[in-house]
């Protein structure tokens, strides 16, 4: 199955998030073919899940927008959605990668977004790929789909075929870049945070989607358990991070993320009392500290230094109790909140099971091992970084694929 890479010295990019997109565009603009492998149905990665971005309060999609379109339209970029890397075999100058793609039950290139399939589907297996996804299209959740081919019947363009199978593609590439990004980890193992015991105890990414303007609540702040307006929200920093039992590292984006969320909560319903429980307030990035000052000055946001020792839903059902020590006033307290946002347990997506062959080695904390990195990596899978740093790494990773070539050439 081994084959020579093409004349354009193709690069295989794993991950279509902010970093992946940037690297792909840089490479393509410099005249190299790119195979962009994305596990989701559309580009954007975690940023696409975000509503707003700090410190400029841009809508996340707005910044992604142009890049995604350019990626889609660039003749040198071949995009593989719903795909993941199965196996890498390495030759001397190039590598062969086996990609499992699809199944694309809905052929995106033929979908005109008329929505008839979604309307028809008896089991709600068909969903739009995303409010602001480009191009707009639908995707079928194979697990929910009951196999009735109603959707196929109503689709005017014949885009749907629920019997399509996933396919194996072998890509001969000269280089590979890891940009698999991150996802939020399940922190229910850390019992004290009470994750899973109450619908209003959620991870910060869940919360972001919950309060998103593009989301179900159209940007209004409501509790999950009964849709009432919360009086108070607690943001717990370093939940599962900087914690030997789970992730020893600092996820580095959470402090600003929490401040941003608190600010948007305040902006939309000023009455809500927002409290951020932090360990160190790491606002070191470009203009981050000013953003934080603006928080403190602009909105009546409370900061408490300390990590809650116990979070549990009150038996009566009205709210969630927090036991914590304010380490700056050395007072032990117990306080009731309507919602709790757990922030920090972010985990690299590199540790995907089942990749065989020439796979990267990971360091103790699950990141791509800097010492043994055969191929350049960028973004969160290399180390926890914010958007700016991540795309900077992406460009530099793109550059390294060229440098490697130069060296090989010599």
């Amino acid at each position, binding site marked *: 199955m081994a084959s020579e890479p093409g004349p354009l010295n193709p690069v295989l990019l794993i991950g279509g998030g902010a970093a992946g997109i940037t690297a792909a565009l840089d490479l393509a603009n410099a005249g190299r073919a790119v195979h962009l492998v994305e596990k989701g149905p559309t580009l954007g990665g975690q940023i696409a899940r975000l509503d707003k971005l700090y410190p400029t309060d841009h809508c996340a999609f707005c910044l992604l927008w142009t890049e995604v379109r350019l990626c889609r339209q660039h003749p040198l970029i071949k995009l593989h959605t719903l795909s993941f890397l199965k196996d890498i075999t390495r030759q001397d100058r190039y590598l062969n990668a086996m990609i499992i793609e699809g199944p694309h039950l809905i052929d995106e290139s033929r979908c005109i977004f008329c929505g008839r399939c979604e309307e028809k589907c008896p089991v709600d297996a068909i969903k739009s790929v995303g409010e602001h996804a480009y191009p707009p299209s639908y995707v079928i959740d194979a697990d929910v789909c009951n196999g009735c081919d109603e959707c196929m019947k109503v689709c005017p363009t014949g885009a749907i075929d629920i019997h399509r199978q996933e396919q194996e593609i072998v890509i001969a590439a000269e280089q590979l870049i890891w940009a698999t990004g991150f996802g939020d980890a399940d922190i229910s193992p850390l019992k004290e945070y009470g994750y899973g015991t109450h619908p209003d105890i959620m991870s910060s990414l869940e919360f972001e989607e919950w309060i998103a303007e593009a989301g179900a609540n159209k940007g209004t702040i409501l509790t999950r358990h009964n849709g009432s307006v919360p009086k108070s929200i607690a943001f717990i920093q370093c939940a599962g991070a900087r914690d030997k039992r789970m992730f020893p*590292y*600092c996820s580095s984006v959470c402090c600003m993320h929490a401040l941003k969320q608190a600010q948007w909560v305040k902006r939309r319903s000023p009455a809500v009392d927002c409290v951020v429980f932090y360990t160190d307030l790491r606002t070191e990035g*470009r203009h981050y500290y000013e953003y934080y000052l603006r928080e403190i000055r602009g909105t009546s946001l409370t900061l408490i230094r300390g990590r809650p020792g116990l979070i549990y839903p009150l038996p009566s059902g009205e709210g969630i109790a927090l036991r914590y020590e304010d*380490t700056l006033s050395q007072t032990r307290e117990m306080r009731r909140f309507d919602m709790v946002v757990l922030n920090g347990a972010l985990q690299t997506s590199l540790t995907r099971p089942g990749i065989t062959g020439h796979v990267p080695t990971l360091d103790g904390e699950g990141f791509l091992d800097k010492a043994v990195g055969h191929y350049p990596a960028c973004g969160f899978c290399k180390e*926890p970084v914010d958007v700016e740093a991540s795309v*900077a790494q992406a460009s530099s990773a793109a550059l390294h694929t060229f440098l490697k070539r130069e060296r090989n050439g010599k």
Partner: protein
Amino acid sequence: MASKRKAICILCRCYGEISDVIDLDSLKDMLTDHPSVSSVEILDCLCLEAVEGLSEKIRQSGTGKALIAACSPIARGDSILRGLEQRGLNPADLELVDIREGCAWIHKDYSKGATGKAWDLINMGLASLVRREGSEDATTLVRHEVMVVGAGPAGLAAAASLGQLGIKVHLVERSKRPGGMLNLISRVAPDETSPGEKLAPYLKEVEENAGITYYPLARIASAEGTVGNFAIRLQVDGTEHMIHAGAVIIATGAQALLPQGLYRYKELEGVLSAIELERHLKAGPVKARRIVFIQCVAARDQARPYCAAICCPVSLKNAMGLRKGNPEAEVYILHRDIICPGSTLEQYYRRTMAEGIRFIRFEEQNPPVIEGTDHVQAVRVYDAATGIMRELDADMVVLSTPLSARRDTHGLARMLGLTRDHLGFFEVQPLMHPVETTVPGIFICGSARWPVLAGRAITQGEAAAMKAFCLVSGQEIAALGLSQFRGEKFAIARVDREACTGCGNCVHICPYEACTLEPVNGASKSRVDPMHCTGCGTCVAVCPNGSIQLPEQDAQVIGEMLMQSFS
């Protein structure tokens, strides 16, 4: 006269999504008699079929202009246009009118009204289409050279990488030796390598690569030109050099702030700034027994509302350095927050704690107090975590001041038309373009944009190099303004020299400094630099007599659209 030109009109049924609401057939009839329509056609689904045949039809239609009434560009419309474009049609001759999202889908229950609205929308489209004339190309040949300003870690990395890629590089440095900030420090945080090691590969490349010219003791006297071809005059001790470059990378770094008048600095023996400690550590082991670091000195306060990101890791590194010099040394770090984001730095933080470095948190409102007469004896600090006032014996106090923006970069900024934030750091484009400035062809990396550790500076240097490489590896650059989320040459503002009164409104309002006034026999007239113009049209709105226009959508078009909007 352009307005006499006709266009062919293609209506899309979109498999009923449009035609179920809008009566396309009656639209067709109305359009056939339209003065600026040559022929009308209805198709089932434009985006899936017939783009091929369509392009032929359009080409044969004589005028080569086509109005496409289909869905929104954000849906499939865009791909239709691209398809036609790939088949050799001029985007200026195509107009997409959104009658699906913009009409059929939002007026499902008013078939009649929707049809009327579609008619108006199509008329508005035609108004714009028949008037639009393609702009001629404005291109510059690209110099396959790059100028890198500043030979610190970022600049060196950028220069070395570009050199390896076979690009001619001019590396400009104000002082004699390359290395920048790293020349002043003992070891590099967090990996504690020596600056020499860190820079070795890049310095080697710069020395050995014939394509890289290094200009020490250089000053930039003037800078002209735009992306693709900058012309920079250099003063290299006395002699003058002329440099031409397709792109410029700014890596001028930042400067260490001295804690003048703070914590009895310069008043007591043994109170030093972080950068002075670096000098001592560089010279050899420092024999101090009780050392107290104070973080956030003149940082994160009203005057300097920012965190310089590197002070904490640097202090940790220096603390370890002192320990090496004297394993018995007691080291305290007084901080307001320990800023060690990520995995590597956090590990490093844990390691220093394991090493026995002690950390005490203080609050902004009651900072530590230095005690002693002519030599520092102790530091009194309110330990916020325990609520106890502590007195620490000390024979050395290190004040960690932030990196601050260079004061001498405003000239450079002016010459290159760059903007700086109120702290003096260079502005960059938000988030997704961290190394790109608002001026095309000028990139920025390292602490000139925001304080960073050497490691990140190098990454940014490489990122900037990549961007520059994409740019200068091409043959020529076409001037493009943004139109419908993509570059179009007809989106660039155009000045009617006859009408222009030279009032200079456009010059003052242009966010990109693309407009300039130049004398034309006596009077001064505005000129648009196509390489700088992004096609935002801000100038159009303030031009008193409409002598500056966006060819894509000029006043005529807007006026026509308004007239047609409700027929």
